[in-house]
């Protein structure tokens, strides 16, 4: 079955050039849009596998059109096709979630290579998705042992996007080739007991317990990301400073991310762990 492509470009000439390049690879242009006006309607009616997107268009530019498409369907695969190629353009495109980039004038070989790569299975992401949670579990177990001299036992993984809400929830953003989130959640009682063991005295305040939970999660995230970076340097993972939610029931949701949820039983109580990474292998030509 041939790959279905939708072309977004205000220039009829460019649309023809891109269609010709695609035809060389036996790919089919199933829809065209020249502005934001007919963008979503065309996308819905032609259901393409991939979209080529010009940047400079009158009215809404390619970035704005891409944002609208991603809002409409987070799984959409967009390849920027533009004469502009600079670091700023590239960074903005990556952050928005654009999958690839081809410079104009379009060369058939480059365009087809990027399309094939964007549509191919992302093996590096698959590796991270498959092994990442195991590494985070190991990091959590190590951290429990190092900080409290006790052990942690894990349950089987349960894949779903809702994290069990506890009285203390630590959210840590992960940044790198694949960005993601790690969430560590525990009851106030568990956190209190951990604090007592680590400080060898009762916690003086709730702030001290919350601070301990943040530090614990930060250590777990840091160790896990270092271990993953050692396995695959190209991951380049780093953890952002933790945000801690406490003192009220909180539902935690990471939209559009496949999360692995699990929990560890410790001497202090149960510690919930949720880890997920966003897909988004990018190829730029």
């Amino acid at each position, binding site marked *: 079955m041939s790959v279905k492509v939708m072309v977004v470009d205000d220039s009829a000439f460019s649309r023809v050039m891109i269609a010709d390049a695609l035809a060389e690879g036996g790919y089919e242009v199933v829809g065209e849009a020249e502005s934001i006006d007919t963008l979503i309607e065309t996308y819905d009616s032609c259901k393409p596998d991939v979209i080529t997107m010009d940047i400079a268009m009158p009215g809404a530019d390619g970035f704005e059109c891409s944002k609208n498409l991603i809002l409409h369907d987070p799984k959409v695969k967009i390849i920027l096709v533009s004469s502009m190629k600079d670091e*700023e353009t590239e960074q903005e495109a990556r*952050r928005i979630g654009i999958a690839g980039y081809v410079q104009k004038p379009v060369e058939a070989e480059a365009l087809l290579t990027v399309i094939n790569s964007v549509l191919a299975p992302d093996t590096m992401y698959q590796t991270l998705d498959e092994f990442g949670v195991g590494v985070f579990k190991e990091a959590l177990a190590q951290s429990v042992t190092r900080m409290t001299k006790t052990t942690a036992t894990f349950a089987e993984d349960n894949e779903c996007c809702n994290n069990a809400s506890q009285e203390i929830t630590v*959210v840590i953003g992960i940044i790198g080739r694949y960005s993601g989130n790690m969430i560590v959640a525990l009851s106030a009682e568990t956190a209190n007991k951990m604090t007592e063991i680590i400080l060898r005295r009762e916690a003086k305040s709730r702030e001290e317990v919350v601070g301990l939970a943040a530090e614990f999660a930060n250590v777990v995230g840091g160790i896990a990301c270092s271990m993953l970076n050692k396995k695959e340097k190209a991951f380049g993972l780093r953890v952002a400073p933790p945000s801690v939610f406490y003192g009220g029931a909180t539902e*935690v*949701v990471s939209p559009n991310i496949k999360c692995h949820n699990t929990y560890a039983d410790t001497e202090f109580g149960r510690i919930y762990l949720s880890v997920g990474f966003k897909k988004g292998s990018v190829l730029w030509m």
Partner: protein
Amino acid sequence: MDVNAINPILDAFAHILPQVGFQVVEKKAISLESSCLRNPGMIINIGVMGPLKGAILIGMDVESAKQFASKMMMGMEVVELDSLAQSAISEMGNMVCANACTNFSQSGMGGLDISPPTLLIGKDAMIKLSVPKVIGVTFAVDGIRVDVFVGLF
């Protein structure tokens, strides 16, 4: 962090919101908060790394979040803050922060990167950020109150 340094984030907010269905974005108030905040009902947490580190949070009460999501989805009725509404709102947060990184880069601070958004829903939970001070900015977006908290160092 210097209050003026949040301008790239405020500019991003004013730039992106009209692109996702809003007409009027008004800055109502700006305040310096401690690192401890209260969740108004729903908050988007986005981690930031690079020359500045920390988190950007965007919060609103649950009813406002439903109205907000409805506007983003071209007026579709939003009775519950379901997965579609959550996805729309978190994508807005991602776009604002991504654009803010671009604005920082244009003003000479490149290399910032952001984590995917996490939504935390639950009225009155407290939030402790890993920064000494947080800058809070209250917006009215087509009349909907939205609070942006910037905790970067």
